[in-house]
């Protein structure tokens, strides 16, 4: 340890310098966004990107939340933020719960052909969603669900199931088969085993899956803009409309505050449960 520390001192200094440099690369945009959002507009125009605000103000935040114009509607991001909340909560809960049951079946109650069905289901993880946009738009229109939160909840549940099923199936494979078998010998059935044995072991995977689904659905833009661009639009769509509105004087500080507001829920989850977030990313990404 001692020898290491001395021998490598120059190398270690360079190493740490590089790591700090990379950290700055990832942090600078956050710093720029935050400081810009806290400046008055004349300072944004007169100063530069990395200058600290001379007068700190939350004016831009208030406008972004309550008063900024998105199209002709000047109520800020607030209604759209709540649209996203109303969308994300049921969509995450339903898709996670169904995924848990599916995973339980595919790991411990296999039947003839269940593995093939699982593989067929996984295709849903890989398709580019552009390939379902047109029929889905038509279907939502026919059922009167276009431009509604309910329609978007439905879409997110349907296309989230492949991922949630995969998460739970892979996790439940690590639950010993003997545990299930001996419970069956004792006379316990499908749902009783799920409730009494499997569910109590599922805490971590529920956290991973909920975080993954929450991030995916909150951050979605494609479904939101294609199926729900109006009053019931999610916050990502509203943010994009706000930033790309070409009428009037551009208020960059308001744009930046709005970007932070739209990012806060997922950032909060990342800070609180980062460990699970990373696990979900790798599990969801590597796809079995």
């Amino acid at each position, binding site marked *: 340890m001692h020898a290491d520390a001395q021998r490598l001192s120059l190398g270690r200094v360079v190493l740490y310098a590089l790591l700090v440099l990379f950290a700055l690369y990832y942090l600078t945009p956050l710093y720029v966004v935050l400081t810009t959002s806290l400046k008055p507009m004349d300072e944004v125009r007169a100063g530069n990107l990395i200058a600290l605000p001379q007068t700190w103000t939350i004016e831009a935040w208030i406008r972004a939340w309550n008063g900024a114009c998105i199209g002709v509607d000047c109520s800020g991001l607030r209604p759209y933020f709540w649209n996203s909340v109303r969308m994300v909560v049921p969509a995450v809960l339903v898709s996670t719960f169904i995924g848990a049951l599916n995973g339980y079946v595919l790991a411990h109650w296999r039947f003839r052909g269940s593995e093939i069905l699982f593989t067929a289901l996984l295709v849903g993880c890989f*398709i580019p969603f552009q390939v379902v946009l047109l029929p889905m738009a038509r279907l939502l229109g026919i059922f009167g669900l276009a431009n509604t939160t309910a329609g978007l909840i439905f879409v997110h549940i349907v296309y989230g199931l492949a991922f949630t099923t995969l998460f739970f199936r892979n996790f439940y494979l690590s639950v010993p088969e003997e545990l299930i078998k001996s419970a069956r010998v004792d006379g316990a059935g*499908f*749902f009783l085993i799920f409730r009494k044995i499997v569910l109590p072991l599922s805490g971590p995977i529920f956290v991973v899956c909920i975080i993954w689904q929450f991030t995916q659905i909150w951050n979605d833009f494609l479904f939101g803009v294609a199926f729900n661009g109006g009053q019931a639009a999610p916050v990502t769509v509203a943010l994009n409309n706000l930033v790309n509105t070409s009428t009037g004087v551009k208020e960059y500080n308001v744009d930046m505050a709005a*970007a932070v507001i739209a990012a806060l829920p997922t950032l909060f989850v990342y800070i609180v449960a980062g460990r699970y977030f990373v696990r979900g990313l790798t599990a969801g990404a590597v796809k079995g």
Partner: protein
Amino acid sequence: MSAVASTPSARSLRSWADDWLPRIVLSPTLAASLVFVYGFIIWTAYLSLTESRMMPSFDFAGLAQYARLFDNERWWTSAKNLGIFGTLFIGISVALGLLIAILLDQKIRAEGALRAIYLYPMALSFIVTGTAWKWILNPGLGLEKLVHDWGFPNFTFDWLVNSDMAIYTVVIAGVWQSSGFVMALFLAGLRGVDEEIIKAAQVDGATLPRIYWKIIIPSLRPVFFSVLLILSHIAIKSFDLVMALTAGGPGNASDVPAIFMYQFSFNRGQLGLGAAAAMMMLMTIVAVLVPLMYLETRSARNAR
């Protein structure tokens, strides 16, 4: 409980339930997948073979929409942009991610904090990332102004509004968002490398860079395949980031296939053409992903 299970009729009911409940539980998901994934792909495929414009029509038109697509200059611009963006985005993200992972794997103090910093962009929506970088790269007030203030008044940086360069701004923002994630995947792979092999090589007199180049990096093959799989998937689908950053502009200089598909389907009422573009995207994903998945499973099997 056991009393109930021991009567014969209850037992047969139980075994009937245990046989059928799994299928019943799984069936709504399978039905949804059958309709909303497979059925919808077939619907889109069929739509791409019709004359559909504003409204879907079911008159078969053969490959006419594909012919129109391949005659469309904008489509080729977006295909070229996907090529540029995909190559650079994947290349730089892999190089940067691997480099940071290796640096971070040298028994670093505060590794957890650094890792958290490298990875947080992945929690953001591409729309947020695009908004942030759109401001940073703003030709009047962004980076350009900053460098002017530093005393280089002739510095220009107008990529965001420069037709030839706009697609590269998407690369900049995309790499910023995704390279930390690549780092995390490589770091997990590095943690799985057997330390004994490294020690043995050091005893043999090999230098650390040589050990990495000759032994460790080649052993990460399966991780490379997963990383390529994920990044090419992100690249081919990329839509939000371009929308937020350049919206395909200036003009249509930074169009990508996903934007082409969206605009022709939803803004221009050219359903057949949009469907053909969507099918091309699907085929691109299949063409890229299937060989990678094949190689991945093969190399994973060899590693065992």
